């Protein structure tokens, strides 16, 4: 059913929008054997590397039955780890949201020298190994660090305590919100804000009534990604936590301890909660992306 005359370029929908393969022009269609082979190779690769690891988490979590699973996640140390993870997220995510909005507002709405350098520096934590992200805080706040002697003299604990965990998590998740908002706000431009200001709105009114409604989906997306990483961060937190059971163990660290004690079912029970978080993140991400392509 391929059209005899190709439609003019301007009206041609992009590839993804095409309704059926049979309507693709011959020139861009692969032979059937290639389609089957490539689809098979892709799905096999993804099955081995993505589906199996995900399935094994839940299979192992319930390998000793539902009662064991419930006991493992209700045990006091597990609950303490869950509480610490939630506390960390409750501090880190809002802090990075405020930063992300401030950075995007400055970068997208104004012109100033050094803007591209600033954008690069915001992305910097993505290039740093999680282990090194933890290490640098030890160098600043640890017993042998810059502020170590002063902190010890004033009896303030940062490393091997909750503040260190919060700081290391903030470092690792630093760019997530900002890098979602900057391109979005740049694309939206400043026309609507100008109109609001011209009509007499002050800065905060402009932000709350004009900018925020425009960026809410991008902001939500950034928060979801930031939250997933903050809850799951392992390397950076591992360096600064001190691994004190019931006190400075986050959920991923608790998983590690149980696993190293050969409590495999218990480790996977707690891990399955984190895997559920990952699945929820992917579902929400797909919905937000779907909404964005719809409204675009």
């Amino acid at each position: 059913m391929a059209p005899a005359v190709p439609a003019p370029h301007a009206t041609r929908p992009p590839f993804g929008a095409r309704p059926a393969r049979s309507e693709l022009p011959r020139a861009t269609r692969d032979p059937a054997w290639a389609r089957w082979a490539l689809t098979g190779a892709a799905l096999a690769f993804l099955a081995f590397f993505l589906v199996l690891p995900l399935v094994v988490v839940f299979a192992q979590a319930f390998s000793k039955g539902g009662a064991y699973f419930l006991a493992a996640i209700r045990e006091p140390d597990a609950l303490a780890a869950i509480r610490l993870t939630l506390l960390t997220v409750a501090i880190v995510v809002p802090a990075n949201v405020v930063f992300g909005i401030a950075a995007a507002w400055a970068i997208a709405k104004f012109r100033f020298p050094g803007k591209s350098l600033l954008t690069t520096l915001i992305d910097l934590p993505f290039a740093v190994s999680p282990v090194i992200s933890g290490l640098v805080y030890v160098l600043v706040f640890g017993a042998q660090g810059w502020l170590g002697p002063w902190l010890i003299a004033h009896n303030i604990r940062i490393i091997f305590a909750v503040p260190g965990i919060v700081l290391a998590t903030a470092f690792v998740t630093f760019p997530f919100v900002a890098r979602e908002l900057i391109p979005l706000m740049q694309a939206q431009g400043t026309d609507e804000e100008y109109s609001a200001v011209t009509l007499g709105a002050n800065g905060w009114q402009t932000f709350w009534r004009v900018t925020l409604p425009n960026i809410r989906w991008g902001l939500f997306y950034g928060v979801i990604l930031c939250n997933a990483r903050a809850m799951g961060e392992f390397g950076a937190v591992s360096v600064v936590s001190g691994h004190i059971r019931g006190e400075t163990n986050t959920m991923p660290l608790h998983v590690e301890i149980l696993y190293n004690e050969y409590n495999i079912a218990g480790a996977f029970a707690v891990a399955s909660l984190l895997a559920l978080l990952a699945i929820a993140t992917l579902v929400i991400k797909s919905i937000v992306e779907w909404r964005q392509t719809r409204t675009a």
Partner: protein
Amino acid sequence: MTRARSSRSILPGFGLSLGFTLAYLGLIVLVPLSAAFLRTAGMSWHDFVAAVASPRVIAAYRLSFGASLAAGFVNMVFGLIVAWVLVRYSFPGKRIVDALVDLPFALPTAVAGIALTSLYSPNGWIGRWLAPLGIRVAFTWTGVFIALTFIGLPFVVRTVQPVLQELEPEIEEAASTLGANRRQTVIRILLPELLPSLLTGFALAFARALGEYGSVVFISGNMPMKTEIVPLLIITKLEQYDYRGATAIAVVMLVSSFVLLLLINLLQKWSRRFHTI
């Protein structure tokens, strides 16, 4: 542009937002990172070389760089295939498969680590089929490679996919009209067009794999000289209170990451230029 220049006076909040951005960036990222460089600057050259070039450290570099390169290469090949299948073909469940590609970004690394170890250990779901063939994955180089492949999987797919989506079908039609067969079109027309994004994805996956810790430590077995990756060596040195040794190795890794970041930026500029033509 006159409009943009006047923006400084019309919209409020420039000083506040930029001031907060710089303060937060400085406190959370720049000051701590500079601590690593300043700490190393206090070391003598001889001590520094001794710390970053001992046989155990060299073995760790070799493993980290080698396994990351191999994983990046596998991801380049399969990432291209996955991106191609997701953009060009339709099959049931395609949207779910597309969403699943981001799993390594969303799944906490420790969870990925214990899941992969459980799959590939000699009595695991995959390991038990490999054991009779004499193939050991868990606690060997192959295990490190598998974990790094998992962690780098989304990068190539997500850099190639948008480029493939925007590719005009006209160029393939033109190639076909001019007498090229499908294979020639793919090799001579499509692959060169996709090369910048393929390389960018490869570099991103490689950079991520170099620093990866959580998904590797469980499956690698962590034997010094054999299956000890560089991030683990940094932690080991820290646990032995060898802060200088740990920091010196960290600085070597930070410099490698920054060079890679620069390379990735250049690659992205190149690929953007490719596509505005």
